[in-house]
């Protein structure tokens, strides 16, 4: 028998002292966690503030030819004939001939002619922009500055994020530039990425979880997949350049399928980009799908086998439906990552300036992050505003993709719970 431990081993007064010390530690730790959360929120708010601050604000416009000098009334109310007369007087014969070649002036509507007059004759140009906060709080100073420095200019409030921005292709003039090509490029690329990496990733996860035995070869494969998930994305870009753009050029450019686009003629296509991003997210999809498959209770597998089901029947009828919500969650996260990727696409050869929409897997392409990157590196201030507006578009695109995937996941989950 061991000796009885005396009750004095837990001295009363020391306990009281320790207790308050213990509670102090608990409070202190809680405060630390709160502070880190608050810090995170502050960073997030700063980011939002920055983007929104640049996306809206006052701009100073200047006309090359003031519209008042062209007609006695507002231009948009001028009849067709008047607008045509202005064009014929003010536009050089060369340009006029080209415009006639595209579509005869007579055949154009009044709105089209008005747009032409604005573009070719009036030529509004942004000379200076201000941020949203400055526009609100320093309006007086800004007005003085404009009156002093740009006597011909007038001041307007502009939302850089507008319908025209979403529907216009890229342009070298900031007031005309838009993100349509970039949005379409991003969507095409991500579509290829999903088609490539989802079936492959889920298939690999099924193999590793359900079929692979626990031997050294499979352990090496598993370790490698885990490590691949941490490889810097630029390295995937190098890989994509070497394999998809160069080695597989006949396929990725579409020559093999007789579908090459005349303007492409090399492997720098949507297909190459999608496959590269597919490689990048493949380990993430595999790891997440494995987690989801592992989370399916073993009792379900046993019940299924106990009824005389084969391995595949067990996987198809029980494991996969129950793992689907988890697999979808992992895929959503991976796709979000793919949409935001820039570096590998720069290496694979995203076009920095295209005005033609991508029309299929063999098109040249640009994506939203590439567009943002390209705009931020321009010297003119106006492009920074465009980049901010494009950032909002990118975030909305990401959030809506996530939201739709969350809905999909909840539907899958409801179907299981019955």
């Amino acid at each position, binding site marked *: 028998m061991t000796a009885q431990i005396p009750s004095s081993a837990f001295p009363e007064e020391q306990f009281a002292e320790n207790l308050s010390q213990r509670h102090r530690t608990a409070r202190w730790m809680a405060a630390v966690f709160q502070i880190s959360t608050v810090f995170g929120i502050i960073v997030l708010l700063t980011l939002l503030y920055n983007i929104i601050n640049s996306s809206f604000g006052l701009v100073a416009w200047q006309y090359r030819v003031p519209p008042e000098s062209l007609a006695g009334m507002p231009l948009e109310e001028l009849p067709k004939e008047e607008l045509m007369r202005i064009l014929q007087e003010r536009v050089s014969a060369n340009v006029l001939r080209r415009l006639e070649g595209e579509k005869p002036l007579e055949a154009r509507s009044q709105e089209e002619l008005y747009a032409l007059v604005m573009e070719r004759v009036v030529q509004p140009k942004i000379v200076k922009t201000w941020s949203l906060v400055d526009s609100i709080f320093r309006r007086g100073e800004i007005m003085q500055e404009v009156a002093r420095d740009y006597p011909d200019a007038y001041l307007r409030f502009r939302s850089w994020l507008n319908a025209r921005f979403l529907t216009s292709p890229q342009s070298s003039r900031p007031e005309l530039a838009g993100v349509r090509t970039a949005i379409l490029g991003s969507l095409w690329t991500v579509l290829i990425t999903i088609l490539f990496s989802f079936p492959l990733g889920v298939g690999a996860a099924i193999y590793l979880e359900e079929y692979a035995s626990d031997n050294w070869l499979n352990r090496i494969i598993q370790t490698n997949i885990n490590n691949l998930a941490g490889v810097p994305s630029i390295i995937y870009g190098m890989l994509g350049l070497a394999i998809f753009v160069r080695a597989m050029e006949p396929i990725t450019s579409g020559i093999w399928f007789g579908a090459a686009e005349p303007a492409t003629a090399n492997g720098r296509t949507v297909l190459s980009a999608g496959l590269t991003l597919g490689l990048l997210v493949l380990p993430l999809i595999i790891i997440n799908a494995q987690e989801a498959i592992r989370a399916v209770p073993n009792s*379900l597998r*046993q019940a299924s086998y*106990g*009824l*005389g089901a084969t391995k595949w*029947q067990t996987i198809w009828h029980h494991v996969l439906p129950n793992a689907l919500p988890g697999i979808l969650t992992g895929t959503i996260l991976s796709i979000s990552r793919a949409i935001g990727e820039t570096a590998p696409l720069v290496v694979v050869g995203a076009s920095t300036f295209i005005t033609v929409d991508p029309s299929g897997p063999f098109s040249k392409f640009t994506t939203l992050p590439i567009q943002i990157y390209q705009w931020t590196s321009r010297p003119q201030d106006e492009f920074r505003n465009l980049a901010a507006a494009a950032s909002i578009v990118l975030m909305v695109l990401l959030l809506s993709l996530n939201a739709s995937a969350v809905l999909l996941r909840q539907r899958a989950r409801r179907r299981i719970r*019955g």
Partner: protein
Amino acid sequence: MNVKIAFQPGVRTSEPLAGAGKYAIEARNLTVLYHDRPAIRDINLAIERQRITAIIGPSGCGKSTLLRAFNRMNDLIPGARVEGEVLFEGVNIYDPSVDPVQVRRHIGMVFQRPNPFPKSIYENVAWGARINGYRGNMDELVEQSLRQAALWDEVKDKLHQSALSLSGGQQQRLCIARAIAIKPQIILMDEPASALDPIATLKIEELMIDLAEHYTIIIVTHNMQQAARVSHYTAFLMVDEQRVGYLVEYGPTAQIFTNPRDKRTEDYITGRFG
């Protein structure tokens, strides 16, 4: 050499088939090893047809391992290996020519924790029959199976609700209905009532006695009263110094519980150790 038993809906009994032996299933010199470490050794056990046989013994004696050896569920555990024979309808189910899927289709199993599929009640019963090629009227089969499992009256109005909405006892009876829907010869039950309250346990026990008219049932239980109440035969397993399980005594339940031949059985049953 293959187990050849035609799937016959409507035939609810496990009548002895031509060429089959006297017993429902028989273990001969059965040893099960996990990673070359034996869990049970040299078990010889012949299970009577249409009777309930209880396997009892202290924790870790390999009761469940023995039970799972009867329908090759140990195959699913990595590193498990079997020596000896298990004869079912005159065929060694561990013969390389025998497909474990076919074995499990004829020897069903009910597990310790109720594990219905997260599907509707109807689908739980119908699924096993469907994958095994049932061609008859599914509604009839579902109703018949649920009636046999004494669950029909409780669920007939909510067949298409999730099985997970049922209570634990109902879920376990659903698992039994699911197992008998594919008309097995033998039903293995691994402590089927250990996760249930006394009332649900009683229902399961009554159900087992009813089912024994048509099926051979082998049940593993920790509960000695349960073994005494429901079973016709009892096998008592012990564990030796190397922590390997072995069969001590096997016989009619009445004899095992009232007049055991082995001192160790008597000690265990009277609660002197274990």
